[in-house]
């Protein structure tokens, strides 16, 4: 198993352009501490997914640099907006997929996949197929697949957006709990202000154009976050600040 704990990121002057167009991201500077839970907010089309793909090294910046410390192979995990499971595999084999691709032997990867499924409370569905699961269970399987490698950097791209609110609340709580246990660095992209404020320790609001940072705020909220926080004045205050930043042009 890899050592746990998070990675620190340092993005300097990052730029990303798609052919013949204005830069989606221009001269972006962003430093993230190891073990931070960072939420990124912004209108759709502002470049959030593009930014995550750059951080995951799935694409190269056209200018600037992205430094990750420490950086080792297979330390990053990615969770997409929809579960994106392989429909021909059981939940267990879906969760074990990253290990399989990395060349981990069958018994070991199944053992680790079971552990990951247990952490998202999905072990009893290990032998089922994705089509037999509810939306929330599918998302948890997707989360288990991301956690199975013990990532030090977890990137989530609007992961719970398609779920109903109660299911989303449960997953939020579960994710935050996992983050606290593991101390990994989490970058969570969302367009939900309440979700960003509830989950993160720090929130960054991006502008519609060129990924300019409009607000970068350390949230003043307790470390322990239960559902009672969702309707508290403290959360309301943070949400108002984020909302004001989102609305300003």
């Amino acid at each position, binding site marked *: 198993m890899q050592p746990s704990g998070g990675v620190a990121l340092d993005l300097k002057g990052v730029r990303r352009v798609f052919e013949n167009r204005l830069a989606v991201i221009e001269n972006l500077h962003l430093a993230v501490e190891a073990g931070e839970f960072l939420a990124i907010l912004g209108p759709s089309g502002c470049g959030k997914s593009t930014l995550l793909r750059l951080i995951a090294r799935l694409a190269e910046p056209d200018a600037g640099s992205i430094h990750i410390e420490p950086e080792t*192979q*297979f330390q990053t995990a990615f969770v997409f907006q929809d579960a994106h499971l392989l429909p021909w595999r059981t939940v267990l084999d879906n969760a074990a997929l990253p290990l399989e691709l990395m060349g981990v032997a069958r018994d070991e990867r199944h053992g680790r996949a079971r552990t990951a499924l247990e952490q998202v409370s999905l072990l009893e569905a290990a032998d089922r197929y994705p089509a037999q699961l509810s939306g929330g269970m599918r998302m948890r399987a997707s989360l288990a697949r991301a956690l199975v490698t013990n990532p030090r950097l977890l990137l989530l791209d609007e992961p719970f957006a398609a779920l109903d609110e109660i299911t989303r609340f449960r997953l939020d709580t579960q994710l935050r709990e996992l983050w606290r246990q593991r101390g990994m660095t989490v970058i969570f992209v969302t367009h939900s202000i309440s979700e960003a404020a509830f989950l993160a320790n720090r929130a960054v609001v991006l502008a519609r154009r060129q990924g300019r940072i409009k607000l970068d705020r350390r949230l003043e909220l307790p470390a322990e976050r239960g559902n009672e926080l969702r309707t508290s004045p403290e959360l309301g205050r943070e949400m108002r600040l984020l909302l004001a930043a989102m609305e300003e042009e």
Partner: protein
Amino acid sequence: MKRLQQAIPALIPLVVVTAAAEFAVRQGLVRAYLVPAPSSVLQAMIESRQELLSALLTTSLSALLGFLLSTVAGTTIAVFLASSRAIQRAFYPYAVFFQTVPIIAIAPLLVIWFGYGTRTVVASAFVVSIFPVIANTLSGILSTDPALRDLFRLYGASTPVTLFKLRFPAALPQILTGLRVASGLAVIGAIVGEFIGGQGLGSVVDIARTQQRVDKVFAAVLLASVLGLTLFGLINLISYLTLRRWHASEQ
């Protein structure tokens, strides 16, 4: 039992048309040398059962062999075409062109190349059925979910691993659609091949035609349809068995 009930509506036109044809021929409304009475088709089938069954077997084997060849060659070619945009631009137009050449026009050529017999018939079945396999497999492989491609890259999967663990299985529903179309075409291709250079149902039809035996032509055509339907049903069964887990709503 439920299935049987669902099949009943489809049987009604069959019974009605068969009865109407029988009636029309017996009343002399239609000339029997143009359209045979269903009863005489049945009689022809029974009388020539030996010949027809062996012809059916011959045609089945050729069609099946041609179909299997297109399945293997078609998927291989599709994988090759999918490997790069440049290769696709260079070769795909020829695959499309190949498809537009009418089989009836190149069948004589096949006889020249392969002689009279099974090889020509198999080649004919192969030629007409390969294109849908290529087209469907290619489009299936090319439409892999980009998020899943990212996921495979994130964990360092090589191109062949991604092909066999992601692109191919994900394309399975489309590949099977291609095979369904190809199976019907393979039967047609085999019969066309047999018209010109072989034995089997195609040659039974051809010979019966020269003997003005419309009843026997109909009997052979009927058997050819049964063969086509059987192959089609077989692919559907394979589809159902492999894909049922993808859509299973029951637990």
